[in-house]
């Protein structure tokens, strides 16, 4: 018996399940029963965090700083000085870009001081007319990528202007134009450092692993603590979120450069800087460009999240529009964000692939044609704006700046659509909604909440033990123990329930759709493109259409999570199935199996490990949607985090809550990744 148990994992799982059910039935749900709920022993943790953060920020390591106001040295805490100067620098850069686009006075103030600026009212940086920005961007597109890019870029700006989103879009753009390059540079820096130094790589690797699982909103609280609130804080949170994949891909790309190419560089007489910048990095360009693309996408995915800690722009507007249920407006803003994302991605790609022509014997005009074109656009735009000031004598000069929400809008159309859907399908939707909530969601939620803590531990650690041995079991136990000792175990269970339900549905959908599409090369390529496109969209975009149908309910959140999280499940299924070596198909055909058998017994098992990684991604995606759900009113950890953001002393709570969410992700990751790696090496895929 015990021998059989050791051999057979199914038997082990069955036994585990029996123990779990028994525990659930035997343990009585009373407050004082430790098997039911652990006492919140680390309830004090948030306060300790608050105090230590205070100490760190305001007392630890004082340094002498010269203060020009009082013309003397003053004692100031080191950490605060560092974070302050970082914030100042980033804020200055964002304001600088922003004022080039929108005009303003802050850059001048930075150099001349407030007094001077108030005295000299004329010293303002005027906004560029939107026509000049759009034209200039189109010229840039043409210079980098030809007519098609130019048209796309121009059209994007025209859309933004015409739909009255100019100001918030330029605010967002200035934010991204600082955050994205910073993340790319940091990523390159760390990637190169890890490439050069084994120790650094060994240290960075686990950190990167964790950072890629931790949902993006977890960074908000610490950033808010150290850097305060505002555009710079949003930018810093964004940079922290966007950098890890860039580091990863830089390192990966550099490692894949054939050694002979590096040697060729050395033999060409490169010094180590030239070797890096002119040989290794350009040769690793493919992966690095994927990294840049991911950075840009992450930046725009953070636009809404960052607005929670004070970043201005489209994200903020989108949040407001969603809160007021103005679906049409939300849609228009969403389109702006997506267009900006795609535009920046294409521009950076075109820039990286640009080619010089050494043959043409160019005249002055030809050599400077882009500058000249821009000069032309600049003058023409100003003239237009000037003419505009005569046409639009009263109200707004549409040829200069189109004020916020004063452009054309399709909102009424969408609202009518929403109304029509509501009128027509009211009972269907309501029925479905109620059915889902009453029959599915509430029972599952109740079941989760009815689990005694001891049973949960046995189940989770047992799974960890069966799959990854004692090490996995201990890791999972440790992660869960932390959550169980806070006072938010119940909330965490609700988060877990939302994530589980959506992951199960997403995985099912993803595997089905992926399998069907993987049957033919054309449909595989099609579905992979669709996945690419969907991954371009920031997560909250999915809320817009769903809220159109289901309003502010758990159903909306669930469906939004499911749509968002189905993308990685589908992608990994297709990739997994496609990676099954053709020789195996043939071997299968030779031994006379039919298509279904082949799928069941050959392809599916072979691609399971890869799919497991897809499920892992799905979990990460789902967890990162938790806060989005909270914005429209779920009652789990996300909602508390949202609350912590606006409390004065929310740091400790927020941080602890963030850690809880991250730990749920890490525990699931531990199981899935261990299993996938095991299977892979068993199947000889690794």
């Amino acid at each position, binding site marked *: 018996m015990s021998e059989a148990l050791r051999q057979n994992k199914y038997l082990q799982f069955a036994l585990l399940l029996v123990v779990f059910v028994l525990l659930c039935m035997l343990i009585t749900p009373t407050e004082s029963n430790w098997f039911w709920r652990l006492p919140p022993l680390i309830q004090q943790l948030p306060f300790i965090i608050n105090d230590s953060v205070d100490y760190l920020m305001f007392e630890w390591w004082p340094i002498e700083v010269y203060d020009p106001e009082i013309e003397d040295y003053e004692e100031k805490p080191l950490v605060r000085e560092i974070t302050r100067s970082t914030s100042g620098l980033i804020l200055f850069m964002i304001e600088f870009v922003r004022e080039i686009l929108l005009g303003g006075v802050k850059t001048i103030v930075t150099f001349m001081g407030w007094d001077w600026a108030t005295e000299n009212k004329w010293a303002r940086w005027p906004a560029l007319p939107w026509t000049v920005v759009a034209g200039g961007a189109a010229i840039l597109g043409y210079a980098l990528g030809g007519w098609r890019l130019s048209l796309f870029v121009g059209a994007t700006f025209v859309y933004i202007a015409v739909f009255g989103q100019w100001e918030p879009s330029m605010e967002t753009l200035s934010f991204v134009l600082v955050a994205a390059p910073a993340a790319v540079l940091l990523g390159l820096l760390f990637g190169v450092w890890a490439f050069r130094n084994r120790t650094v790589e060994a240290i960075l690797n686990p950190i990167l692993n964790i950072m890629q699982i931790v949902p993006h909103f977890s960074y908000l609280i610490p950033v808010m603590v150290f850097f305060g609130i505002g555009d710079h804080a949003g930018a810093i949170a964004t940079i922290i979120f966007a950098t890890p994949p860039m580091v990863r891909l830089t390192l990966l790309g550099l490692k894949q450069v*054939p050694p*002979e*190419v590096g*040697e*060729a*560089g*050395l*033999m*060409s*007489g*490169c*010094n*180590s800087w*030239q070797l890096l910048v*002119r*040989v290794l990095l*350009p*040769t690793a*360009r493919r992966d690095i460009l994927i990294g840049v693309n991911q950075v840009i996408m992450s930046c725009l995915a953070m636009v809404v999240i960052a607005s929670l800690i004070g970043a201005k722009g489209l994200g903020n507007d989108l949040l407001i529009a969603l809160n007021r249920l103005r679906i049409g407006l939300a849609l228009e803003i969403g389109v702006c964000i997506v267009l900006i994302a795609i535009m920046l991605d294409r521009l950076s790609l075109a820039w990286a692939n640009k*080619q*010089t*022509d*050494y*043959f043409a014997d160019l005249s002055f005009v030809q050599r400077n044609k882009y500058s000249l074109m821009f000069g032309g656009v600049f003058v023409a735009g100003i003239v237009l704006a000037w003419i505009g000031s005569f046409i639009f004598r009263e109200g707004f000069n549409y040829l200069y700046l189109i004020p916020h929400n004063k452009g054309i809008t399709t909102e009424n159309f969408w609202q009518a659509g929403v109304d029509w859907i509501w009128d027509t399908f009211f009972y269907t939707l309501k029925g479905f909604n109620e059915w889902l909530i009453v029959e599915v969601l509430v029972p599952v939620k109740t079941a989760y909440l009815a689990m005694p803590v001891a049973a949960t531990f046995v189940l989770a650690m047992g799974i960890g033990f069966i799959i990854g041995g004692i090490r996995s079991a201990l890791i999972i136990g440790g992660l869960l123990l932390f959550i169980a000792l806070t006072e938010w175990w119940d909330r965490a269970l609700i988060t877990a329930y939302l994530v589980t339900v959506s992951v199960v549905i997403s995985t099912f959908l993803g595997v089905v759709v992926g399998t069907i599409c993987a049957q033919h090369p054309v449909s595989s390529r099609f579905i992979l493109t669709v996945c690419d496109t969907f991954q371009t969209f920031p997560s909250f975009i999915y809320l817009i259409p769903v809220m159109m149908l289901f309003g502010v309910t758990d159903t909306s959140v669930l469906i939004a999570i499911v749509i968002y999280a189905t993308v990685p499940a589908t992608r990994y299924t297709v990739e997994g199935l496609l990676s099954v070596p053709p020789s195996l198909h043939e071997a299968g055909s030779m031994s006379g199996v039919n298509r279904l058998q082949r799928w069941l017994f050959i392809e599916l098992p072979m691609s399971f490990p890869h799919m497991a990684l897809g499920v892992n991604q799905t979990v990460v995606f789902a967890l990162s949607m938790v806060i989005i759900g909270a914005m429209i009113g779920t009652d789990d950890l996300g909602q508390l985090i949202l609350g912590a953001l606006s409390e004065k002393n929310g740091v400790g709570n927020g941080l602890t809550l963030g850690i809880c969410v991250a730990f749920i992700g890490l525990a699931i990751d531990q199981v899935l990744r261990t299993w996938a790696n095991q299977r892979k090496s068993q199947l000889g895929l690794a």
Partner: protein
Amino acid sequence: MVALGTGGYNQNNDMTAEAEITTAQQPVIRCESVYKIFGDNAESMLEEADGVVDADKFHQAGCIVGVNDASFEVHQGELLIIMGLSGSGKSTLLRCISRLTDATAGKIFIEGDDILQMNSKQLIELRRSKMGMVFQSFALLPHKTVLENIAFPLQVKGVSTRDSIQRAKEMVDLVSLSGRENYFPRQLSGGQQQRVGIARSLAIEPDIWFLDEPFSALDPLIRKEMQDEFLRLQDVLGKTILFVTHDFDEALRLADRIAIMKDGVIEQLDTPANIVLNPATEYVRKFTEEVPREKVLKIKSVMDPFDPAEDFSDFRVPQDAIIETVAESVLNAGKPVRVVDDAGEVVGALHASHIVHVLFGGHADHAAEKSS
């Protein structure tokens, strides 16, 4: 066939002449007991071994022997071919001499300077002015066009864009790639890519030219064509060359001298003829067994002393010609022919019997004896 032979002959001719003048001078490359051993504790193990390295013993200790006690010299304008099976340490030896890897022990002199003592600045200077290398996998920069790839060594040196591109254009013509200047490497065939690699390695006009199996990745036909091209270039340029290959035919076509390596050890370093005729070790003998002699031996090695009394045909052969290239003409001449040196002086006589001996080996002896 004849045309090719002539090419080879000319080149050999020049080279020997030059080599003779410069032997008195210091060698361009000199290696003294060079060892390269991969592994963490390679250095301490080497010290203990006291110069006698047993590859198997080292392997058990977790070290891999790349180069084992290599000592030799290469002179100005000489083409030394390094031969051996895959994994015998050819590339490693080349990498030691170009200091792409640091030799574990030994001394390596380039024109009298010990490169192992050079700091990185001196090393970069040396590579920028004196060395060029061609790689088996071409190792072109994928993001640069043909022209930019070739101009690259000049640009890292600080030559202006205009001048470097100008020079690169000349190189493009030299390797017959005109019209493809703006192609990217991925748009070129293997042979064309290697032409770019060759042009790049020659852009700075190096004195020493390293080629690591430059033609091994190419189809046989293209390889032949590239070898011809290489001979043509060397004829013009007269560089000091270290050329790695595992193809004996290639070695014979190109070499002044050949070094045969096995497990990191240079088993024999000698002229092609000597390697074939007097193999130093059993390994070399086996290695050269199948090689057709007429492809290796020069007329010089089979000629007799000149005896004016004999009846000669009007046909004359140069003493450095490879037998294969002139065999047919000599056999058709019907009478012994005169052998001449570079200056046209008669230095010996060649009898058809010797050619037949070389061509058909020992078992033809009898017949050959009769006919003379």
